[in-house]
């Protein structure tokens, strides 16, 4: 993929100090790493990782500096393809065509598809696995699944939905399109179980959930 040749160069130059510091032996993997993430590190490393991915992921930790290196590699790859990338505060990024390719596509669909290809190609070997794992492990350090966080929210808010059900049974209930949350508190747990939405956003989402439940799917 496009990003991979660049990745090797950046990995060697940017991570050299860190690698030198580790010359005395690789740090021990975090024994508390949730199984879901440990499995993902293993899966990536057992596949066809880039040099950067291998160097960053093999100790099952991703430092801020390593993440920054991966993002730099992604951005450089995108810039080489004449796309401009701006990383956003709190994560994420904005991408758009540079002047050289701004008029290269006849429709929004074509332009977005072209960007899709650039993002996919440039994330491969750079931020695809490293960025995902870095951000996911920080926002969801326990590696909880959706059902687990919804159950915890139900318990915290005294929602009776799913009481006494096993995790598998609760999963089935939540996946059942005929399931209607018993209250707005239940809806809030389903929509935003860890309370990341603002009150206004949550109210809107709950209202949307309530309205949607009243309109059968076509």
């Amino acid at each position, binding site marked *: 993929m496009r990003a991979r040749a660049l990745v090797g160069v950046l990995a060697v130059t940017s991570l050299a100090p860190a690698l030198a510091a580790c010359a005395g032996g690789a740090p021990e993997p975090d024994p508390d790493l949730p199984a879901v993430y440990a499995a993902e590190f293993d899966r990536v490393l057992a596949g066809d990782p880039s040099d950067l991915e291998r160097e960053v992921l093999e100790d099952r930790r991703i430092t801020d500096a390593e993440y920054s290196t991966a993002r730099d590699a992604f951005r450089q790859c995108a810039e080489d393809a004449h796309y401009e990338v701006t990383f956003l505060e709190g994560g994420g990024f904005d991408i758009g*065509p540079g002047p050289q390719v701004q008029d290269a596509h006849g429709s929004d669909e074509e332009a977005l598809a072209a960007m899709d290809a650039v993002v996919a190609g440039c994330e491969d070997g750079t931020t695809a696995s490293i960025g995902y794992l870095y951000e996911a492990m920080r926002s969801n350090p326990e590696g909880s699944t*959706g059902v687990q966080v919804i159950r915890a929210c139900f318990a915290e808010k005294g929602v009776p939905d799913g009481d006494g059900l096993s995790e598998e049974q609760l999963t089935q209930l939540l996946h059942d399109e005929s399931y209607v949350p018993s209250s707005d508190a239940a809806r809030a747990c*389903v929509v935003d179980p860890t309370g990341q939405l603002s009150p206004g956003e949550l109210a809107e989402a709950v209202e949307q959930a309530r309205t949607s439940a009243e309109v059968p799917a076509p």
Partner: protein
Amino acid sequence: MTRVLLSTLTAAAPAVGASVAVAAPATAVTAAVGGSVCQTIDHRLASGAASSRNTCTSVRARVGYRDSGGTARYVYGSWAAYSAASFTHGGMLVSRAVDVQLGSSTTGFPTY
């Protein structure tokens, strides 16, 4: 990783396959991805592969928009906890339609 287009972000099953909505340049947008999205998408994926159920740990939202100069662009949110990922990006207005990517140990992490 699995990529699915959603038309709505609700606790009820959203329609899958709607396109990313891009509206005229405006002041701001907040696109919120609820936890139920993971469940719902996972459910729909599971219709063909039961093993993909209930494994999603994170989501990230992607919104296509047109900037003030009329150029189509994307903004990607960060990978966020299974629950809600929300982001606000000045200078654009979109509907609640976003493109959501899922992280999952069985459906595969970011491998486009």
